[in-house]
């Protein structure tokens, strides 16, 4: 006998422990079941694209730090790559290796955060989160060595990276690379075979490959559906074509796959950094580029594989020292296209977990 209940509308957010910042979902429930979702954006809208129109090309680097604030390095990389493609500035070899090392470290840090918060949303009392943060802390310390800041790094510049790594960076990196796989095994021991996690995440929020591609999903969420697509392989930039690495994919496209793809990507990133450390040679890290870059009046779009997906910058130049128009293709934002379809029909607890597994950062969603 069906029990008729009155639908209840709840505002999840903007102040809610599990919305990854100030994100708001207007959810209608039938009992515990989600029957309608309407995401409400814009609580962290800062107008980055407009701000960029009045700053020169180097100053915008500091703006990109604040897009996806848990993965500032890859944001920097995506931006400076676009400027380089706009102007044709060359990057020296060592600069490219340093870029790859730092952005892969950032990818590990970002995936650790995603995993930790996903588990937090599953209800583990902060333990996996703190284990993840403990390892992320060591990456942030290395960033502090590279560029003096931990989160808002502003490390890359058009034409290379700002500064060479200090001498005490390399032993620390070696130490990290040797100990990290063990810590990852430990973290997996806490999560991957845990019956509660499996019961909560398996077959939950399944996204098919066709839908994912149609909805422009990128990053680990796309790869979890079985689509082997990674811009580091498809469009090898920097030195990725010299590195040997796999692109892990999921089998079903559910929440567990999204988690597991991230864990496997961390292992691949460690592999890449190891190869980079072996291959890197002394040399300049930054080519001579003018501070006030004046590209010809052209436009350029370059997509870069950031931890959340394809982060693309579309810059239109009118020949001046600042871009005429800068558009950001934010992966977190576009990955939310399927949110409604993924959530409807699941329960409140699942809503939080599916939303967490998409791994958005509101700084990037609202820009």
């Amino acid at each position, binding site marked *: 006998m069906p029990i008729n209940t009155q639908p209840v509308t709840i505002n999840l957010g903007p102040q809610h422990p599990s919305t990854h910042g100030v994100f708001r979902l207007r959810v209608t429930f039938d009992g515990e079941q989600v029957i309608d979702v309407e995401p409400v954006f814009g609580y962290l809208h800062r107008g980055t694209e407009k701000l960029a129109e009045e700053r020169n090309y180097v100053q915008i680097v500091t703006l990109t730090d604040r897009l996806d604030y848990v993965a500032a390095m890859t944001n920097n990389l995506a931006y400076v790559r676009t400027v380089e493609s706009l102007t044709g500035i060359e990057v020296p070899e060592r600069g490219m290796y340093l870029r790859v090392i730092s952005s892969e470290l950032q990818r590990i840090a970002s995936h650790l955060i995603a995993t930790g918060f996903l588990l937090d949303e599953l209800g583990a009392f902060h333990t996996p989160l703190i284990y993840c943060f403990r390892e992320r802390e060591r990456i942030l310390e290395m960033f502090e060595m590279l560029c003096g800041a931990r989160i808002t790094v502003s490390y890359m510049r058009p034409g290379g990276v700002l500064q060479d790594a200090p001498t005490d960076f390399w032993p620390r990196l070696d130490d990290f690379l040797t100990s990290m796989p063990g810590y990852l095994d430990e973290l997996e021991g806490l999560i991957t075979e845990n*019956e509660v996690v499996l019961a909560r995440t398996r077959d939950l929020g399944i996204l098919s490959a066709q839908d994912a591609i149609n909805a422009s999903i990128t990053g680990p969420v796309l790869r979890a559906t079985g689509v082997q697509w990674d811009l580091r392989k498809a469009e090898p930039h920097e030195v990725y074509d010299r590195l040997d690495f796999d692109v892990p994919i999921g089998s079903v496209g559910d929440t567990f796959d999204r988690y597991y793809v991230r864990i496997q990507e961390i292992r691949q990133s460690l592999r890449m950094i190891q190869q980079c450390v072996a291959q890197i040679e002394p040399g300049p890290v930054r080519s001579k580029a003018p501070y006030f870059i004046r590209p010809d009046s052209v436009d350029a779009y370059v997509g870069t594989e950031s931890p959340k997906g394809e982060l693309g910058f579309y810059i239109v130049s009118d020949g001046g020292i600042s871009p005429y128009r800068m558009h950001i293709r934010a992966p977190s934002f576009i990955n939310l296209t399927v949110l409604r379809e993924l959530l409807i029909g699941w329960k409140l607890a699942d809503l939080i977990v599916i939303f967490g597994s998409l791994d958005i950062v509101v700084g990037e969603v609202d820009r």
Partner: protein
Amino acid sequence: MYGLGLVKGLMVTAKNLVLPSRMMTVQYPNRKVGLLGLSKATGVPLPKLLLKDPITSVKSLLGMAEVKESLPQHPRFRGEEFSWYEQRCTGCASCAKYCPLGIIEIVTSESGDQMQEGQKYHLDKFDIDIGRCMFCGLCVEACPYDALHMGSGFEEGTYRRQDLVIDKRKLVSAKKTPSTWFRPQLASKKYDPHKGKNVKWDGAGRHEKPSLEQQQEKWAKR
């Protein structure tokens, strides 16, 4: 399977319980120490400590003794308390131009009747509003004379926003412990700003200021 994964998870947490080396807490600003830790931190041998300061020793056994602890920072850390050398600054305002937020305010007036290369402007005003500063360090990168350096502090707290504006007087009298960020000349000397040693203006630059003769010679050539 059959709850074995759950048991595995329990083992992981148990492992972390018994391994104190995995502790990630930094007890800032004061670290609680035991008796041995106290003697290690103060550098006083244990018997001497017991005789000299029995009250503190008992306190430390109760876990109530504290020693100062600071957060670990790399010399490259970009922090507030800018180190600015008036002697090196020419008032070119490159830093003000390069600042993405426009928070550096510089007012200059002519110091001589005939401005020549190497001669400097008189600085009437040099304000940095660190209440809005994001410590990106572009101003330091821009400075052609290595006059402005990032600091290493992070503990500024005031009751009013206006107090966060560092003016020229504060900049001159501030501690000169520049960060080695974007300053390879300091990094090559293995300088650590957290040790608290001040750096004089002549040791902070990448190049020495040209002498008057050199300047005149160069000027004459043009």
